[in-house]
């Protein structure tokens, strides 16, 4: 029961940040419409490089299973509300994958898409926590860790790639319109 509440709390934390991300995106659109896509591209590049570094050297404690396991163990013995709150707090810990997810969610055109994105981010990062079917095939934790690191690297490359495209497209448009 504590585990379920913990996971539910984590999901709630993610969804709350989904809402916050969307509101941030709307505010940027309203206040800085000309600079919005440049800003996203720059943020993506910085976070993508950080994520690639994280994938290469996985030492970021708050994103690892160890810290989650410690909290999980502690909350198992506490009042029902605490696992849920613990999940919320764990869910909103700010690591590079989370910041990238926040940035992508801020770009989405509507609130539903932001929340949808964070739900899938939740599922993707739950690989260490959820008793997903077929994960029995990966009883070996080394395999799970390797897949997690490689996935982080691929996502980092994707964001680096897509932000480079934004830059190239924008520069090309500026060049051919005479910088106007």
């Amino acid at each position, binding site marked *: 029961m504590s585990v379920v509440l913990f996971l539910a709390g984590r999901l709630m934390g993610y969804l709350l940040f989904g809402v916050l991300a969307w509101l941030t995106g709307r505010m940027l659109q309203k206040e800085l419409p000309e600079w919005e896509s440049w800003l996203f591209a720059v943020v993506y590049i910085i976070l993508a490089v950080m994520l690639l570094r994280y994938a290469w050297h996985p030492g970021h404690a708050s994103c690892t299973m160890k810290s989650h396991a410690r909290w999980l163990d502690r909350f198992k013995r506490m009042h029902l509300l605490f696992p849920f709150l613990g999940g919320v707090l764990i869910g909103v810990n700010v690591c590079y994958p989370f910041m990238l997810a926040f940035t992508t969610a801020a770009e989405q055109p509507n609130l539903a898409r932001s929340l949808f*994105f964070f739900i899938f981010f939740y599922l*993707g990062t739950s690989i260490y926590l959820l008793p997903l079917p077929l994960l029995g*095939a990966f009883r070996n934790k080394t395999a799970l860790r*390797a*897949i997690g690191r*490689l996935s982080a690297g691929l996502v980092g490359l*994707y964001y680096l790639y897509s932000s480079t495209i934004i830059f190239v*497209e924008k520069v090309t448009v500026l060049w051919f319109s005479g910088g106007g």
Partner: protein
Amino acid sequence: MNKHIHIDVQRGMPWWKAMLVCLPMMVLTFVLLSGGKAVTGWEKQVAMAVTFLFFNGLFFMTLKDGRTDRWRAPAFILYALLLSFTFIVHMLEARGAMSLSEAKLLECQVPFCHVVIPMTLVPIALKQSIIFPGQIVGGYASISSMFVIWITACLVMGRGFCSWLCFFGGWDDGFSRWAKKPRLRNIPPILKWMPFAVLLVVVLSAAVFLEPTYCAWLCPFKAVTEYEAVVNVRALLQTIVFVSLFVGLVIVIPILTKRRAQCGLFCPMGALTSFSNKINAFDVRIDTERCVKCGLCARNCPVFALSDETIAKGRAAMTCVKCGKCIDVCPKQAISYHIKGTPPGWRVRFTRVLFLYITFLFLTVFAGGTFVEAIRRLLNLITTGSLFY
């Protein structure tokens, strides 16, 4: 705990016995290739005769000679080459170009390939929609037909699909046999998990963005089938990426390592199909007492499914593609196909013949159509000077 298994197997069988065992295969392949109808037109008759003799000849040699990979590889590699050939010719004939225009995408006329399957599953489950601009039934390579073929093949042969049916695998399989010796031996072990990482990323990203992300950004085989027309910067960058991946993963790295780099280190479909090895009836077992731990099998496994760890356990990893290469190279004949649920070492020769019957039958039926089409096109080129009908 390691169970000792004793495999008593002799390579091959006498030619007359191999011929007898081949007879049912010849009848089945004749009926399935012809569709039970009389074949009209000399070009089609010649194409069907050549295809029939080619596949049954290879099956006969597999039984007589006792080696599996040696006789599987020519059919598998040729299948990949001829599939690309017939596909490209078909696209040129149907729309005048290999590249896809936006109009064709909107018409949902794009042929569906099995590699898209993992990306379509979550959107189908959540939104009952298929995120691919293809035809559900009918037409060229419909979505439903590829699903049926893939599911059936997985149930019957597990990840053997990747060595007997996948019409892309023959490319890097072929290039991996190019060099005599590998130039690059030490592949970081973590990379063997890359296909699963790619699977996770493309499945989740496809669900979020409702786009087949692997096809849009990563598939190297667009270089030999079809691709989006290069009309803007994004399409140009996508083209650079997939051509680079084809050159790197399908040509250069297989030549340098003598391994199937795309299949063993990248393909998300291979990763998904690996799970079917858990439910499939056949697996590859190692007689740990007969094994002298020379490591030849592990060094030759094209998809990194064998290591000191798996050899000690007496079985290949779940990523095994059942190509038979380890069985062929083992100097002590310590490796064999095995039916799950039977005692280790149970009727090894029968198990091998049963497995080969299933795989060759599938290969002949599905690749046979491509062979017939390719031969017809080539005969048409010789007689009329054109590849088009």
